[in-house]
Each structure stands twice: as C-alpha cells, then as structure tokens.
C-alpha cells in the first residue's frame, strides 16, 4: 500500500532547560508560569540566569537590580554580577497529520 501524505503540521512543546521543580526566588512562582505581572510565558516573560546558575523571571530580576541595595548582585547568593542571560530551551517535536 502506498500512502501519500497530502498535508502535515508540526507541533512542538518547549520547556526551560533548568531543574524541574524550581521556583523563581523572587516571586516564588514556578518557572512554568509567568511572573505575577505577565499573562503568557515565553518570549513575553523570559527567564534570566546568572553565572552562578540561579534563575529568575526577567521582570522580577530587573526590578531587583534597579534597587540601589542590590548592587547588581544575585539575590540568592549575592555573588554573581551581570551579564544575565536567558537559559536554553528544550523542544519536543511531534508530527500530526
């Protein structure tokens, strides 16, 4: 039997490449969710990681860094200084017909 594929679409799920049960140390919301000011996770509400390995919602860490008392340091270990970079993302692909 020959099958001709007439149409297909790809679906993917994604996840931040960080340990699974982590919550943001600032708002204490799970990284799968957004920071308390946003509606949708992803590009709109990205994460940032310090060199020390601590992750935060971008909006949460930006607010902290703005504080004078922060001195640009990581709230968790008070060590890392910028740059802060977004963590990588895991993708799971799926094909549907």
């Amino acid at each position, binding site marked *: 039997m020959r099958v001709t594929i007439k149409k297909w679409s790809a679906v993917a799920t994604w996840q931040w490449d960080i340990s699974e049960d982590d919550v943001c140390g*600032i708002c204490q919301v799970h990284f799968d969710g957004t920071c308390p000011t946003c509606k949708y996770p992803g590009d709109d509400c990205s994460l940032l990681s310090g060199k020390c390995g601590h992750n935060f919602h971008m909006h949460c860490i930006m607010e902290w860094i703005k504080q004078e008392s922060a001195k640009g340091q990581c709230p968790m270990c008070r060590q890392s200084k910028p740059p802060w970079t977004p963590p990588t993302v895991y993708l799971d692909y799926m094909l549907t017909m």
Partner: protein
Amino acid sequence: MPSDQSVIRITKELSELQRSPELSIAVACRDIDVRNIRALIFGPHRTPYEFGFFEFTIKIGSEYPDKSPEVLCTTTNSGRTRFNPNIYSSGRVCLSILGTWRGNTNEQWSPAQGLESLLLSIQSLLSSNPYENEPGFENCSSEADRKAQKQYAQKIRHETLRVTVIQRLEDYLWLRPNGTKKPAATEYLDPADAAEVVPPFEPFKDLCKRRFLWYYESYLAATREGQSETKDGEAFVIMPFESSGQNAMEGKFNYGQLQNRLQNIKKALDEETASWVDEGVQSARNETTVSVNLRHQYEQVVAHMHKSKLAHHINLEGGNPFVWVITYFGPAFTNFDGGLLRIRLSLSPRFPTEQPRVKCETKLFHHLVAPDGTVCYTPNSDRLEDVRSHIDAIFSVFEGGEPIYDPRKFVNPEAVQLYWEGGEAGKKTYNRRLRRTVQQSMDDFPE
C-alpha cells in the same frame, strides 16, 4: 512593580507558614489585610527568654520583596522594657537583614529572604547570652563582664515571665495582678451597644492560652530557679549599654508574686475550660451550628472507630457534644500495654477558633503529659476543624515509640530531665515510672 505582586508573594508565604507544623513561630493577619502581619515568636530553649511570647508587627510595603518589610516589636511592656540589646523599648528591631543594622552584604535583605527567614533571624537574637549581642561586648570575658552577663540573663528571665507571659495572659483573662477579675469592657455598656462592639484582633489569644497550659510547670520551675539566685525586692542591675529611664530594662525581682500570678492564671484557665461544659449544654439545647457540627463529627468518629476495629471507646459526657471522653486501650508490645487511659477533650462553643483542651485524667508519667494531665499533641494544621485529626494526634502521643527530643514540647520538666539529662540510668527510671503508672491505670480505672 505593581503592588499586587507583593500581595501575591506574601499571601503565599503566609499560607505556607500557617500550614507548616512550626511550633516556635506563628503568624496571622486579618483576612482583608495581608500587608499588616502579626507574628509571635516563642522564646527558645536554654535561653532566659524560654517559653516567652514575643509579638511583632510586620508591614509589607508595595516594593516587597525587593525591599524588606518594616518590623516593630510590640512586647515592650508599653514601651518601658528593652528585652535585648537589639530590641529596643521603642519596639525598634536592629537587624542587618532589615537594614536597621550594619552587616556583611550576605546578611542584608534580598528577595531571597522572606517572612520565615526574617522571623528566624529575630528569634536568633533571643539567645542564651544576649549581652554579647551588643557591639563591643561580643567577646567580653573578664570577671566583671561574666557577672554582668549573668545579671542581664537573670533580669531577662524575670521580665520574660512577668511581661511576656503573665501580663499577656492576665490581659486575655481580665485578671488583675492580685487575682481578682476586672469587669470586661463590654460590661460597662448597654447590652444593645455591647453587641456592636467589634472585638479586638487577638490572633494569638487561644494559642497562648494553650501554650501556657503546656509550659505551666516550666514557668513555675523558672521562678524557683530565679528565686534561688536573686532576692525578692532586689533591683535589676543596669547594663553598660542601657540608658536608664528610656531604653533599658528596669525593675525589681519579685518571684514570689510571679508565682501567685502564674497560679491565678492557671486557675482562671481551668475554670474557663470547665465553663465550656455548661455553655456547651446551652449551645446544644439551642442547636447552634457548632453543636450540631460536633454531634455530627462525633457520629462519624464513632463509625470510623468501629469500621477500623479500634477498641477505644468515645463517649459524650452526659450527651454533651462539647465534652468527649475517650477510653484508650494501650497497644500491645509498647510501654502502654495493658494500660487503660481516660482522656477528656473539652471543646469550646467557639470551636474551632478556640481549639480543644485535652487532659489525660488517668495519672500518667509521660514526657508529653504535663503533671496536671494536659496532653501536648500537635494536630494536622490543615484540619484543625476536624476533631478526628485531634484524636489521631492524641493517639500518636501514646503510640510514638521512643521519645523524640523537641524542647518546644517540654511539658513535664521532671520526665524531660530524667529521660534526656539523666543518662542511661535516667532513661531506665523514666521507663520504669511510665510503666508503673500504666499498670496502675488498670486498677484505678472507674467502673
């Protein structure tokens, strides 16, 4: 940052703390107002603050958690007593994570800190040698310093008992220092007006009453120890870092009077528990929501016991749903084998706001049973309205196996001393005395 962000986080922290089985701190707020928190810290073991009730107000600003909360101590004897070099009589708390004290960067506030870490930092100020908290006095070990350290601890112990425990409880119970009753404020009012008076927000009232019953013997023991070291009428020594008249701990020792006041409070609390019986009968007659609920819970508990083939009996005394009497059969192969305990649960017409008071009426020598029979048990904090969670927790007191060291549950000083400070011989004596009271329980049990 929008202000609701701080509300979301603090609400989360509050509910986690309230659900945790933490025995040394408690937090509360009015439902509508999570930005104004009250916290209670219990004075830690082996310190002059032991079993004291220290209350704080915590204000959460809209920039929380980027900025630290504002903290004020409210246990200050109306602004007259400085309980610690870092806790002033004005209520100011000097702590590096609050930014009210200098400290290393890693001791300063960051959003990684929170309500719990803050309260634990405050609790750590209540130490065994608070004299050392004062800068410049950290490593003092001269003869004179050691003497002053001891004098400081002695007056703190006295004021912990007098101000944080006795004054608070007398306040709750409308007692004067001489033991007579003050008329409640509402008694001055027309009954119609009195009904409209909004009761004050006293979130720790029931908790402190129950803890008082736990620690009553320890309070008395502390007064006896204090009495052996000081003379009644002797004035407190002012410390070099205290400023007399404004930010100090001043006063006189009077342990004899403290003992009387402790006894009066104990008596008033026992009378209060006893008054729930009649109040309960009345509530049952009026079929109040609480009484109907308790009767329903009783039927369910009895059905559950029957289904799980538990031999213990539970009866309502005189059919009163506010007094549950449990007959507990000691399980085989434990220290309670062959024992028959009669346990009385007194429930308040204001249950579950006011939690049950539980007494083992059978004489029992046990580290979790106070000499007056008060049982020290900790129900699942998620299900305080469920009498069964109380009963389960009470049973686990007697089915726990080897005693677990927890200084916040030291309700029977004699048993604690034998088991944990008496070496192997002490442990043996403890077990022998426990066994003896268990055996006796069978013979003593009322027909």
